[in-house]
């Protein structure tokens, strides 16, 4: 029972990390209609900038702003130099251009920062445990990550439902004229939103620094899962990204946690272990397929 609870927490934690990545991606798509394959690169840039700052200053608390700033700045630059030219274009051009960006960023990081994975330590304040239930300690850092994820979700919800920017965002990409008629500089708004998406990716990057490997290509490892999340949730919907992240994060974690165990109850040991491993690595794709069979536009389809 305690194991189940712990695994649920693990699933929730993975979900919230996925949400940070998915929120930025889906925001950018929902508002500007751009698919950004290089979203994972922004995550990598956040992590590298964070690791670099942590190494220079010796504290995670400066790494955090450094990572956020780097990702947001690179994101803004990306929007101004490249993405801006792609709004009116087909998804195909966007896929291609941002594919080129992935290659560039991977090459650039390898060239400038070297190929070694970088060190990034857990901040000492968060290196301990919290006993959530008697006999169930949980790493403080992971709890903190969950807190950040929830805070970001709430913040985004507030921004979108209560603020002027949120209203503009809700107006969506197809109502450009309307937004412009309100006297909004749409070009600036887009740069801002793109930078915000990048910032969220950077936030995810810095935060996973202490628990994952900071290295070239780390963005692509999470990119496809993030896509699965937003497809399941409904591309362009923040609510969908949240639901999708929960579904995918939970299925992935619980699949890895319990599928091999269940298989073991009616298969021999090694076979069950192997099959369980294979099954849990494709489980999120199966979930996605199932969702799309029932709802081809995701759980929270966005009109238009």
């Amino acid at each position, binding site marked *: 029972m305690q194991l189940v609870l712990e695994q649920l927490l693990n699933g929730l934690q993975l979900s919230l990390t996925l949400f940070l990545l998915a929120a930025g991606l889906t925001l950018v*798509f929902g508002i500007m209609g751009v*698919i950004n*394959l290089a979203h994972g690169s922004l995550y990598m840039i956040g992590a590298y900038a964070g690791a670099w700052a942590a190494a220079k200053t010796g504290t995670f608390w400066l790494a955090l702003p450094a990572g956020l700033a780097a990702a947001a700045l690179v994101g803004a630059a990306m929007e101004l130099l*490249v993405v801006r*030219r*792609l709004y009116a*274009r*087909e*998804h*195909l*051009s*966007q*896929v*291609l*251009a941002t*594919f*080129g*960006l*992935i*290659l*560039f*960023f*991977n*090459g*650039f990081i*390898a*060239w400038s920062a070297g190929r070694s994975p970088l060190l990034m330590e857990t901040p000492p304040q968060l290196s301990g445990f919290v006993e959530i239930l008697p006999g169930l300690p949980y790493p403080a850092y992971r709890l903190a990550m969950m807190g950040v994820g929830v805070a970001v979700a709430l913040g985004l919800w507030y921004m979108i439902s209560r603020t002027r920017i949120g209203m503009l965002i809700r107006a969506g990409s197809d109502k450009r004229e309307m937004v412009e008629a309100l006297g909004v500089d749409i070009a600036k708004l887009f740069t801002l939103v793109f930078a915000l998406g990048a910032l969220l990716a950077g936030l995810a990057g810095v935060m996973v620094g202490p628990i994952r490997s900071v290295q070239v290509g780390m963005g692509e490892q999470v990119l*496809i899962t993030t*896509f*699965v999340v*937003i*497809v399941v949730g409904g*591309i362009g919907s923040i609510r969908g990204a949240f639901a999708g992240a929960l579904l995918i994060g939970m299925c992935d974690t619980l699949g890895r946690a319990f599928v091999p165990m269940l298989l073991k109850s009616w298969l021999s040991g090694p076979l069950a272990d*192997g099959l369980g*491993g*294979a099954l849990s*690595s*494709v489980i999120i*794709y*199966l979930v*996605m*397929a199932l969702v*799309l*069979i029932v709802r*081809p*536009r*995701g759980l929270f389809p966005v009109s238009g």
Partner: protein
Amino acid sequence: MKLTRTGVFTIVVALAFLAVPYAATLLGSNYVITLATRVAIYAIVAVSLDMLVGRSNLVSFGHAAYFGLGGYAVAISAFHLANDVPIFGWAGTNEALIAWPLAMFVAGFGALIIGALSLRTAGVYFIMITLAFAQMLFFLFVALKYYGGDDGLSLSTRNLFAGNRITDARTFYWICLAALAICLLLSWRILNSRFGMVLRGAAASERRMAALGFPVYRYRLAAFVIAGMMAGLAGALWANQNRFVSPDMLSWVRSGEFLVMVIMGGLSSLVGPVVGAAAFLLIESYLSGWTEHWQMVFGPFVLLVAVFAPRGLWGALRGKGDV
């Protein structure tokens, strides 16, 4: 008949392919042939992908899956043959005329299932879902220990072609070139047939085609399967050329590269994808030989093509209005 610019360049491309073996003799190196064979194989994939992306407006980001399925079909039958367990109880699976159609069938079957699900969606969903399905197959092959997992599977020898050995580089090149020619001819005929008109019409206006009474989904699915089969043939050829397959054949990066080829060459043209495949392989191989940081040059190059030359190299070469 007046010769258009497209016509001229098409002939130039064809002559270049025909001249390869002579160039190899002149240079005294078979590498030109090996490289041209690779170009021909990738060109088949690019042509098949253009049928979807260029002609049908279906941006498949998982085309490597069918390429890989085709390759694995050949490799797995060879593997069973080598281990004395022919798959279907008979030993002819080393014959190209059996193994290659089998590869096409397997790839086409995969495309049928993936397409049937993916085509329910459209636009960016379609891009993502094809990507995700290909990724799923990739992970499956990685986990498939019996067939080598991520180490892949080696073929001890190339298939026989109508009973003849095709280990000679030139022979194999001619076979691949013929396969490319057949695929080009087929795709040209298909695109101008009634079937092709429905596909292209639906790409231009799906609503119109539905209102006329075309169940567009079925036509697209058929196109998806045909393209998957062509990619499967290319995969079979690739497996034969390298005498090796690995899950890397199905990776999403490769799917992305196929898209780059098609767009770099020029969408919705007959020869464009062929030019794109050639340009892609030459540029990539030149760059990665030139600097270990090739990605820093190649990435921006891809980006520039996407932003400034959406009609691709072929689009820039050929005259306006030509098809």
